[in-house]
């Protein structure tokens, strides 16, 4: 039943974003595992569209924050304004008070503005002017970022990258998808036609079910072996954190769930590992120049499935 729903979401989304089924499924997995998603790629490959589609399909209350270099924390969190009628300050919530936030081009903002968002991501709450306010549930952040070698960017520090459950790259569409894109309708029109496939409470139920997927000792052995390997091999500057280990587990559960299985297989871990670990791994001092994705692949080929 749940699988049908999920498959439906994927099918619908892939009509708008062509030829990116894997990425769509990863994004959905990320949301099922209650994680935040970072999409990293060049401008114009459909990052924003993907975020739009997901929000629309899941029927979530959606806000978009365009990050710029002059963005201030108050622009995200909200600000208190003096209300003459009530003769008091009234808090005007910022765009963060929504179920799904699209933080567009997050690495264009200053670290100060970035951290305002990232704190909210971790705590699911916002502290502004001494008052702590709960954010709505579910709460997702989909951030997009340009590769940091683009001009005018503030790359996210590792500690903040760690808050994103997954980082995915969209990449250029293949020739067939590109042809269909060129021939097809305007994406905005398509987006507008999309109908939500889930009610908000359905999503919460799916998330709960996903975390019920069975995890055997053998699989935990595998995850531990993977994490352990990164902590020992000189290939990696530093090993995966315990949080990353949990992220691997939850993402693998969600992936297995989206595949309609009741147990997690090593293949599930392998499917999500490049997205979950790729942005957390740095090459060791003697192996500079290797990308996170290459490191993740190295990790997968080096650790045997127990």
């Amino acid at each position: 039943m749940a699988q049908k729903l999920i498959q439906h979401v994927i099918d619908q989304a892939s009509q708008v974003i062509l030829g990116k089924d894997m990425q769509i499924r990863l994004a959905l997995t990320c949301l099922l595992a209650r994680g935040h998603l970072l999409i990293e790629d060049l401008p114009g490959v459909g990052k924003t569209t993907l975020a739009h589609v997901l929000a629309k399909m899941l029927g979530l209350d959606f806000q978009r924050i365009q990050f710029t270099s002059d963005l201030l924390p108050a622009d995200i969190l909200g600000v208190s304004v003096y209300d003459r009628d009530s003769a008091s300050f009234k808090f005007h919530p910022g765009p963060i008070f929504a179920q799904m936030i699209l933080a567009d081009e997050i690495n264009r903002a200053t670290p100060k503005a970035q951290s305002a968002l990232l704190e909210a991501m971790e705590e699911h709450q916002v502290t502004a002017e001494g008052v702590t306010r709960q954010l709505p549930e579910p709460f997702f952040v989909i951030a997009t970022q340009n590769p940091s070698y683009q001009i005018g960017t503030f790359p996210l520090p590792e500690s903040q990258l760690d808050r994103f459950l997954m980082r995915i790259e969209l990449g250029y569409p293949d020739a067939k998808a590109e042809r269909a894109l060129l021939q097809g309708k305007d994406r905005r029109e398509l987006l507008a036609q999309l109908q939500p496939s889930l009610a908000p409470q359905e999503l919460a139920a799916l998330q709960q079910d996903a975390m019920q997927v069975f995890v055997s000792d053998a699989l935990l052995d595998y995850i531990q072996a993977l994490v352990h390997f990164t902590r020992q091999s000189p290939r990696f500057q530093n090993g995966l954190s315990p949080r990353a280990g949990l992220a691997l587990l939850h993402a693998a559960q969600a992936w297995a769930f989206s595949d309609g299985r009741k147990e997690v297989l090593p293949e599930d871990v392998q499917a999500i590992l490049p997205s979950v670990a790729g942005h957390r791994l740095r090459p060791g001092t003697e192996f500079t120049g290797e990308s996170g994705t290459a490191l993740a692949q190295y990790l997968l080929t080096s650790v045997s499935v127990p």
Partner: protein
Amino acid sequence: MTNLVWLLLSLALATAPHLGRLPLWVGPICLVMGLWRLGIMRSNGTLPRKWLLILIAFAAIAGIFAHYHTLLGRDAGVALLVVMIALKLMEMKTLRDTMVVIFLSYFLVITHFFYSQSIPTALYLLLVVLLTTATMIGYSYPQERFPSRPRLRLAGTMLLQAIPLMLVLFVFFPRVGPLWGLPKDAYSGTTGLSDSMSPGAISQLIRSDAVAFRVRFDDTPPDNSQRYWRGPVLWDYDGRTWSTQRKPPSGKAQFLPLGQSFSYTITLEPHNQRWLFALDLPAEFPPGSSASADFQILALRPLHQRIRYSLTSYPAYRLGDNLSDETWERALHLPDGNPRTMQLAAQWRTSLDSPRTIALQALKMFREEKFFYTLNPPLLGEQAVDDFLFGSRRGFCEHYASSFVFLMRAAGIPARVVTGYQGGDPNPMSDYMIVRQSDAHAWAEIWLDGEGWVRIDPTAAVSPSRIESGIASALPAAELPPALVQLDAEWLMRMRLSWDLFNNNWNQWVLGYDQERQKRFLSGFHHGLGSWQNMSIAMIGSITMLLSGIAIWMFWRTSRQGIDPVLAIYLRFCTKLASKGIVRAPGEGPVDFAVRASRFRPDLARQISLITRLYVSLRYGQRHSARLPRFRKAVQHFKT
């Protein structure tokens, strides 16, 4: 550094010590080849044409032939090897070619031991082996760059891991004597006493601080002035050079030991001659040697390898009570010339009453007139003895011994020249004594009626300190060759002696581990181990045990946690597929593997899928232990 740079570097280091020994043009050729190859890589150029390489190869072979007049033998062989490796660089296309070059480089490393087996050489070659191994590691990861430090670390680990194997091979590999004869030029270049003595021969030898032999006395060694190490005995003089033209007098020596005996063991460095040195005079001779009546001990073959032998000597003795006519004549024979010396001898003969007083008179002359002991004597003319005795009066032990024997013969006293070593430095850090080439010496023996052959050292008359405290104290400081300069600093002296001690142990235990030592060492454990057949069996057995030990340990380590029975059955399934060439990669999950295996063997797809499904549910699902027997059965029945 790229792999090629690594390769060139390790090759350069492997070749470097040879360059001084090879024809001059070999070095530049190697350099050109290396740089050419580097340039090709930098510019993405193409390798040179085959015909060009063949041309260079033939030119190089011709060059080597022109230089050595052969292509065989140690020197020509090494030259050929070096040049061909350099040329191989130019046709290195595939990984296989590269591996050939790397293995040749290992081989090149071994060839250095033809020239030197010293500790510094061994250490240097170890470094080269490390670099070569690191190079090989780099080429084993062709798709990525392997950084230097982990690469060296890995190479080091691999070499360390090879140590047990190395030890087993070292101890057990049967030393059955050389399997093939070493080329005859393999032993050139070692120094030592020769079978003749002309002016300047020994003073040249003195300049070398190379070790002639080391000796360990069982008890207290005799005094320095007693330590005459007897070597070649020279009978025949041609006016310039002393030698033994004909065979030395044969027959059993009439030898009567008197007084104290000294037992000792000598470790003699190879000197490419047959002499075995012994303290004047030994009571018996080492096994496998022969001695002539004048107590020259000769080995059966020239000594190309270090040998050890034990002897007992008596510094006080009586030798040769009777002389045969032939020996008598030989011991008096002189060439024409040197009239002034002849005249002096004739004068002594008439004025002095006994041979003994004549000898003493000669010594007195050396002692009381202005004779000097020097390493740099002036050149002597045609009448060498006259020139020395009445002209220059500056000379080295060979001058004194030579002119003394000449005088004696001229005065009608049988006499001969004995060469060998005198003295030796004890190494205070251990209980052995080092005798160096710089201790080379020449003295005289005269025959006196009723006393036999008596040793007389005319050098002692000129320079008593030479005999009492060694060569270094007898020469003026300005004349000392660098090898003999007394080291002022205590620590330098100590370091030099420690180094010699270390060298001695290396010689005794590593290089000296020959057939006989191996036999003795192994027989100590079990007397049957002495034969080479049993050694081979022991070697193979030890290696097998070593490797299986490692295998068992690794197996035990993986199975320590107690292997899951489900996994065990699955692994059996994987083994079955592997036997058909479908091998599961270590990082491959079961479902992925099943998909891949089914693609290779569509006929088995159904079974593979069933087994995988059962395995997945048993191992990763909530336990359905009920399915275990079914799973086991399915794998059992699985036939590829």
